[in-house]
């Protein structure tokens, strides 16, 4: 008999069942998109946390010169002694994970050097550090030459160069060494991380201190030969460095290294162990332990908000899958009704749906994980992630996908029940329910908590700043609820407009009618797009307000963009685009009260242009205040900062100097809100001179402040001969982990906003797909009545564009409202002015304004092309 094969089970029929949703692209796309969001939401948080923690480790270890731990001991600098200690230590550090080389530094101080043929002697220190020649700038000499290396300043001072003999003295003993070469002083130029552990041998340890004696660098053999001759006792230092493997700086790897270092430090401290016995209670430092602690604190501080978002995203995605399942049943109601009439139970139908949706959900979950992985690598603080975080994110995405499949099956079963029951109007009732009221009520509760409890960023004992979840929940709930209500009223207005649209131009009429004919889809799409715009706008608003406030606070603490100590009052040459000023700081005693007070001397001529100033710091403009400061006579005019009591007289250099308080100001650059008297340096100098003393003699610290781009300002102070390593910048202050924790939270929120925008665009695609058939029929009919292709394209543009425009307007307005309400509450340091102000991110909203018509136009072109290619007769026939 013919066609017997048609009644037999087809080979790979199970595969067709798995791919059956490909025949319902809108359903398949909805499931896939929801599962993608599910995967992103589940996987992004652990990956982002890992990225943030690893970034803190990377920066911390960079600052520490990649040194995990250091051991320092006083020792006789003899080959056998140092060699024994080093071998014992190297044996002990093998147990530390991710350990690299151990760098040995031998140093001796209290030495003097002079040319062998006599001349001026200079104080020096003798230093040997393994591999040093790769980390100095050689000015003269050959790297393979034997002998000692002199710093440029020392070589010039004693007039010695390569090949010359120098005499090194230690007390009564002396030894002659050949100069192998000359290197640029280590404090000049950009600091090399190699020398970071020896910064105390290179830079002054405190403001105003003289720099340490110039280091004479030598190879280990030369050093030990000299020290044996000179019978030197000195310091042996071992820096246990992290391996050069990049992955060793991931948070997990660093944590393991920190645990190993803690064990090593304990072992070294114990005289009962070989290494403890050999090193004899050395001084120890474990930078990696501090770095890991900072990283953990930072990670913990952002974990709460991230997980809140993650859970919100997962819930939203599950709701999306539920809706997709209901939509799928509606789309396939013929099949459902037929199978129900055949006697299949809702559970059996759910099982079929489980099988059919498993593949798109799994694929969506995998793609979501991949997007999260790539997104965090590209948009996160660092691309280096912990393997455990990656594995954890895979697990979370997989678990979420399983939950997604279960929710889809549940949704299918419920929808089947509703579809097969005559009185199945419950879903429509749910769709009509005013869910926005619930969201707004919860938003109001969150706002009440914020306003009444004073909820704000809290600083934990470890110094990390935590963002309260209410600051994140309120805007999401508020924007979702208000957007839902606004869009609902827009849709009801649309219904009324569709009646009047008869008199409008044809494209506008068509667009209005199409939207009015599917109000629920329009409602859903507009609300989703408004929510995404709202989240993006809110995160951008708060992020910008926070950035500006944090920068202002940092500049208040530093005083300007750059601050650096100077050995004396310097002439500050003008430089285009830079505004320098010199400042002096000294501690004085109030004559009438116990304790001390800081005196900050400023140059009234240059201070206003160089220092950071916020009008909220004082009741009068800074210019007026500075002018008054410069009008001193025998009394010293001063601004009183902070809560210090008025001071009538101060004791400075043993002289009582009368003070005339001019005005109390709330904060002052370089001092914050600390108790300070701000005076004019020329007036102070004049009064001191009247007592026969100078600024130098009262122990002032000289500072140079520069306002301008940090790189140029740093180059400027280097050009003054000042050490760039001592430069304090506002940017570095802002980059501290405690600040980054706050800003990272809002970066993550912005990423979620972008994600939500992508989802909204997917919604547009779904909408276009869902309305494809109706649009095709309407186009076929309208074109017979004279509608042109261009007219239809305009109609589609108006249809999509009006949805996106409404979303952009509603979302932007709500984001600005939420941002304006909450901007002052997101303050990482409320005690430090200025408070964050409402700063809308104009470029972001401009980008949204541009994206709306562009998306509408692109959609219109694509739809028109698709419509042109479609076979209308076939579409109508297929639909029955």
């Amino acid at each position: 008999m013919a066609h017997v094969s048609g009644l037999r089970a087809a080979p790979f029929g199970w595969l067709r069942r798995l791919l059956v949703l490909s025949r319902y692209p809108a359903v398949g796309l909805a499931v896939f998109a929801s599962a993608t969001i599910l995967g992103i939401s589940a996987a992004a948080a652990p990956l982002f946390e890992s990225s943030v923690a690893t970034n803190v480790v990377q920066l911390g270890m960079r600052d520490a010169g990649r040194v995990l731990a250091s051991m320092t001991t006083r020792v006789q600098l003899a080959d056998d002694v140092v060699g024994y200690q080093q071998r014992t230590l190297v044996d002990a550090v093998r147990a530390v994970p991710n350990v690299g080389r151990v760098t040995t530094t031998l140093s001796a101080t209290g030495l003097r050097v002079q040319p062998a043929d006599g001349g001026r002697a200079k104080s020096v220190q003798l230093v040997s550090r393994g591999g040093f020649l790769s980390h100095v700038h050689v000015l003269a000499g050959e790297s393979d030459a034997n002998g000692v290396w002199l710093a440029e300043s020392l070589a010039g001072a004693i007039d010695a160069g390569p090949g010359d003999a120098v005499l090194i003295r230690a007390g009564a003993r002396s030894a002659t060494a050949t100069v192998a070469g000359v290197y640029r002083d280590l404090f000049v130029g950009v600091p090399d991380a190699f020398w970071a552990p020896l910064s105390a041998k290179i830079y002054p340890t405190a403001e105003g201190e003289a720099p340490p004696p110039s280091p004479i660098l030598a190879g280990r053999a030369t050093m030990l030969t000299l020290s044996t001759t000179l019978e030197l006792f000195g310091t042996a230092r071992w820096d246990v460095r992290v391996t050069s493997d990049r992955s060793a700086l991931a948070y997990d790897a660093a944590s393991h290294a920190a645990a190993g270092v803690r064990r090593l430090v304990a072992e070294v401290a114990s005289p009962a162990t070989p290494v403890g016995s050999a090193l004899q209670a050395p001084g120890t430092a474990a930078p990696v332990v501090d770095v890991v602690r900072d990283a953990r604190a930072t990670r913990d501080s952002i974990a709460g908000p991230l997980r809140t978002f993650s859970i919100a995203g997962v819930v939203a995605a599950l709701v999306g899958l539920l809706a997709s399942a209901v939509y799928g049943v509606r789309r396939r109601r013929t099949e459902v009704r037929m199978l129900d009439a055949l006697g299949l139970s809702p559970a059996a139908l759910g099982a079929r749906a489980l099988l059919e949706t498993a593949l798109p959900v799994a694929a969506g979950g995998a793609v979501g994980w991949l997007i999260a992985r790539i997104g965090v690598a590209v948009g996160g603080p660092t691309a280096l992630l912990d393997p455990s975080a990656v594995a954890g994110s895979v697990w979370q995405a997989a678990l979420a996908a399983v939950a997604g499949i279960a929710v889809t099956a549940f949704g299918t079963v419920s929808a089947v029940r509703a579809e097969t029951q005559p009185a199945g109007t419950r879903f429509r009732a749910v769709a009509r329910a005013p869910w926005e009221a619930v969201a707004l009520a919860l938003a109001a509760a969150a706002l009440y908590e914020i306003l009444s409890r004073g909820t704000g960023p809290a600083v934990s004992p470890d110094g990390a700043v935590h963002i309260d979840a209410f600051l994140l929940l309120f805007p999401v709930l508020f924007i979702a609820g208000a957007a839902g209500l606004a869009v609902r009223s827009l849709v009801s207005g649309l219904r009324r407009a569709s009646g009047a649209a008869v008199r409008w131009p044809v494209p506008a009429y068509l667009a209005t009618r199409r939207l009015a004919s599917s109000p629920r889809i329009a409602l859903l799409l507009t609300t989703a797009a408004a929510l995404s715009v709202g989240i993006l706008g809110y995160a951008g608003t708060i992020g910008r307000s926070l950035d500006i406030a944090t920068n202002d606070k940092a500049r208040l603490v530093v005083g300007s963009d750059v601050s650096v100590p100077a050995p004396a009052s310097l002439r500050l040459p003008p430089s285009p685009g830079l505004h320098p000023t010199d400042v002096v700081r000294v501690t004085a005693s109030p004559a009438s009260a116990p304790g001390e007070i800081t005196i900050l001397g400023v140059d009234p001529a240059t201070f206003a242009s160089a220092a950071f100033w916020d009008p909220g710091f004082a009741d009068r403009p800074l210019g007026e205040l500075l002018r008054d400061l410069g009008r001193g006579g025998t009394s010293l005019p001063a601004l009183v900062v902070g809560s210090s009591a008025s001071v009538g007289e101060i004791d400075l250099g043993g002289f009582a100097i009368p003070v005339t308080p001019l005005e109390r100001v709330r904060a002052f650059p370089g001092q914050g809100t600390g108790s300070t008297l701000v005076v004019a340096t020329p007036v102070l100098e004049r009064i001191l001179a009247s007592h026969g003393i100078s600024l130098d003699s009262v122990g002032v610290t000289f500072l140079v402040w520069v306002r301008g781009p940090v790189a140029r300002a740093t180059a400027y102070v280097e050009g003054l001969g000042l050490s760039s390593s001592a430069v304090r910048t506002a940017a570095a202050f802002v980059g501290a982990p405690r600040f980054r924790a706050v800003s990272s939270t809002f970066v993550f929120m912005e990423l979620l906003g972008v994600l939500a925008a992508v989802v909204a665009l997917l919604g547009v695609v779904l909408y276009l797909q869902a309305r494809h058939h109706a649009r095709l029929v309407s186009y076929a009919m309208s074109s017979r009545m004279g509608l042109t292709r261009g007219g239809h394209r305009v109609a589609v543009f108006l249809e999509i564009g009006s949805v996106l425009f409404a979303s952009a307007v509603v979302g932007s307005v709500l984001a600005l409202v939420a941002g304006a309400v909450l901007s002052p509450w997101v303050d990482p340091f409320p005690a430090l002015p200025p408070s964050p102000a409402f700063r809308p991110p104009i470029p972001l909203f401009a980008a949204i304004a541009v994206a709306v018509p562009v998306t509408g136009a692109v959609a219109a072109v694509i739809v028109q092309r698709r419509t042109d290619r479609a076979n209308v007769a076939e579409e109508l026939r297929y639909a029955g």
Partner: protein
Amino acid sequence: MRAEPSAAAICDSVVKVYPSPGGDVMALAGVDVTFEAGVVTALVGPSGSGKSSLLRIVSGLDRPTAGRVVVGGIETSSLSSAGLRAMRRQSVAYVWQRPAENLVGHLTVGEHLRLAARVRRAGAGWADRAREALELLGLEDRVDHRPHQLSGGEQQRAAFAAAVVGDPALVVADEPTGELDSASAEDVLAAVRSLADRGTTFAIATHDPAVVAVAERTYHLRHGSLAAESTTDRPLAVIDKGGRIQLPPEWRDLFPDARAHIEMDEDGMRIVPP
């Protein structure tokens, strides 16, 4: 209720009330009908007379508010939802009015038949019987075709082919020719006749006189009650359990006062206006 030992399905005093916001609506007001095995039974009546409600109840898709329903020897009125589904699997097939509603877009005709066989757990010989049915319905060349590749008449015949897989006790069809042109409708009715001759029982709701012509028995429903019953021999008025007889609509005009005088004599009963 008449005792019908060969009945495929029996409805005894079936009442169906639908709740609605405007108050309860009585769709069926105590209907007694019997669907004899191997017979094509037509249900006719104006829209809203209760045809579809009766079909949904007899096919186990809905429950009666009161009354008793027996399908394939199973009393369905007291069955649980699972029991009703099992009854549907074993005893009933349903064919809807629109051809597109009876077939799934992504399945071929053969796959529809195989799906029905699997759900109904049809025995080993189902494929042979299905092939016979396909030949009988003129679809032997359409086994591998999907619905959009078939005409409306072919789609409806394919639906009947799937309906008879597993030999259910009753095939219920709700206006199966309602959306077909006359030629396609004739093809479908020929198919129904052929299947009935093979022993399949049909219950068909219809407005189509052509369907009534094919049916051996026709029930006329009006306002949820059985108004009349006609066989191929002659029409019969129906006396309900309260002793009420419904007059055909065209006779009601003879009684403008809605009152009648009944006279009994040796030849029978006469109903005359007062």
